[in-house]
């Protein structure tokens, strides 16, 4: 571990993910995609926070707005998408108010990204070391090449890469090693928050476990907060401290991971957890109808009403707000009273 890192990150070792204070606060975020027949509400009034030193998981089906949320946090939403409203606060700074020069200073030094399919994001004709140097030198004052080399080798050690990778090209590495090189790059400038978009989706289970454990190790040793986007509930159970479930652009449930798996409250979260295939016992498959509404014209009321097995009249009239129904466990569903007791339903 480099000297700078230990200085700026006193909290090393024994991080349990329940550090106080928020590293990132997202409020009422709205991102719409323009189409000729109306706006698609990719992210609609999403609010959440990521606490210091925790990994927050963001799950939901493809197209539910997970990646768009991440891009909005990074202020990287591209046309035809646009951020319509809300705020994204990183350590007291509202990223929405920054101009492009200021954003450039924040990106990578305070906020970095491990993009989807990160292993294909490496430049195939550049050595791994020059790509990492590139990232460091763009954001920092020049340092001697010996210093840089030592720093990069420290990073490699941190993510479990052998030092010979320093002089290798991306095609010489396996998928898991490329992914770890991307993690090394993401932590190179010691950011407060890393957003990892499907960090293990293209890897097989054995390598997925190695990469997952690398992320956990980085969190434990550096105390970096992370948002991990994915759809594999098994992986989430292993990796994250808190879990947020999105459906069709809305946040439907946020809870500590143990509470989420022990007692999912929203019918969609229940469905996600019940449909995890098991390797311990063979059990009958659980089926649900899969009709989603047109994202351009969301129905009045609850966003999940068309697939919900317990839909009630009120679900078609009023949009359920996100309420804290259990300690730290928020759910947007009409099936519960304000104090969290379930309402009898059909």
């Amino acid at each position, binding site marked *: 571990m480099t000297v700078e890192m230990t200085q700026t990150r006193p909290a090393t070792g024994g991080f349990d993910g329940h550090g106080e204070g928020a590293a990132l606060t997202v409020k009422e975020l709205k991102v719409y995609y323009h189409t000729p027949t109306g706006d698609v509400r990719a992210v609609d009034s999403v609010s959440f926070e990521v606490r210091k030193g925790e990994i927050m998981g963001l799950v939901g*089906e*493809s197209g539910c707005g997970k990646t768009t949320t991440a891009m909005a946090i990074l202020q990287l939403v591209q046309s035809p998408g646009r951020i319509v409203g809300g705020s994204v606060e990183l350590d007291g700074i509202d990223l929405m108010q920054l101009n492009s020069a200021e954003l450039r200073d924040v990106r990578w030094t305070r906020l970095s990204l491990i993009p989807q399919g990160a292993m294909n994001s490496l430049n195939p004709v550049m050595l791994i070391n020059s790509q990492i140097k590139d990232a460091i030198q763009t954001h920092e004052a020049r340092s001697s090449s010996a210093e840089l080399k030592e720093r990069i080798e420290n990073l490699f050690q941190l993510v479990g890469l052998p030092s010979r990778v320093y002089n290798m090209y991306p095609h*010489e*590495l*396996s*998928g*898991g*090693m490329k992914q770890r090189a991307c993690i090394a790059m993401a932590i190179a400038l010691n950011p407060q928050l890393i957003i990892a978009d499907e960090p293990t989706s*293209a890897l*097989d*289970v*054995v*390598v*997925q*476990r*190695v990469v*997952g*454990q690398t992320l956990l190790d980085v969190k434990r040793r550096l105390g970096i907060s992370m948002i991990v986007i994915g*759809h*594999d*509930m*098994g*992986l989430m*159970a*292993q*990796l994250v401290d808190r879990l947020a479930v999105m459906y069709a652009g809305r946040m439907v449930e946020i809870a500590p*991971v*143990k509470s989420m*798996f022990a007692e999912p409250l929203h019918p*969609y979260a229940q*469905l*996600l*957890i019940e*449909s*995890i*295939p*098991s*390797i311990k016992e*063979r*059990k009958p*498959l*659980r*089926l*649900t109808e*899969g*009709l*989603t509404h047109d994202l351009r014209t969301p129905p009045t009321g609850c966003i999940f009403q068309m697939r919900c097995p317990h839909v009630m009249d009120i679900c078609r009239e009023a949009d359920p707000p996100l309420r804290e129904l259990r300690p730290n466990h928020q759910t947007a569903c009409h099936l519960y009273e304000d104090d969290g007791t379930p309402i009898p339903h059909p």
Partner: protein
Amino acid sequence: MPPLLEVQNATKLYGGSLLSGGPVTVALQDYNLTIEESPATITAVAGESGSGKSTLANLVLGFTSLTSGNIIFRGRNVKEMIGQERMQYRREVQAVFQDPYAVYNPFYRVKHVFDMIIHNFKMAHNVRDGREMIEDALNVVGLRGEEILEKYPHQLSGGQRQRIMMARAYMLRPRLIVADEPVSMVDASLRAMILDIMLRLRDEEGISFLYITHDLSTAYQIGDAIYLLYQGVIAESGETTSVIENPKHPYVQLLLDSIPVPDPDIKWGSEDMATVDDEEMRISVDSGCRFYPRCSQRFDRCLELTPPPFSVGEKDHQAACFLYEDKR
């Protein structure tokens, strides 16, 4: 009665020829697989990316040809089929692919998918018969024609598209459906529906499946038999329940151990895991066990000889590992 499908000593090499040059990649080596005529079964073929499972699907579907070995369908060598017989084979062996977004031509309505096969296989004499046939096939997968036939593919969800592909395959009344990762791009909450269709087609219509997947848990949930591939070689095979519940080959043990448990209270085993560059490992064609570089229980013998399958349990449970040699 001959088996429905028999793959005998199938070997497929890529590269290394006069024209393409470069090192030889062994995609599949001495692969054997049998699917019985009846009862219909779901045979799972699982392994990590690059283990040769899609190569097997492509070989069975006739997209690529074998370097050596044979594929026998109901007693006839597929290589020797020509003309009418070949057409019949194409009809009886259907495919469902991984990506339900890429298989549709975005310019045509959904019904084009069905019209095309009705036309190509001359299945209906008039439009009404054809329409009835389509409706019938869609009902099997829980869809209604009026809902989807006039739509364009982009208006449907991934799960719906994959169900339509199942209906398309079913409409031809095949004997075997090769399903290459049919649920890996379908949303988790909708996977069960696709898997259930496979089970129902097996039980009610007598259609066998060759289910290619990297996901051992779905293979366990619906598979009757399983073949686990490691770098083109069968590491372990047998009845799905005995293989998954009682794995013998060190690779399969590692694989099952690595599947993240969907329970935050049970953490991953934390022993240090060394991964080796895959590229380094896959050059050699003949010498020794392919899992040697990563194996925790290796011994010298493993480098000298390629382990043949040894019987390790009841029925057909076999593992290609010298650890089980003396139990033969």
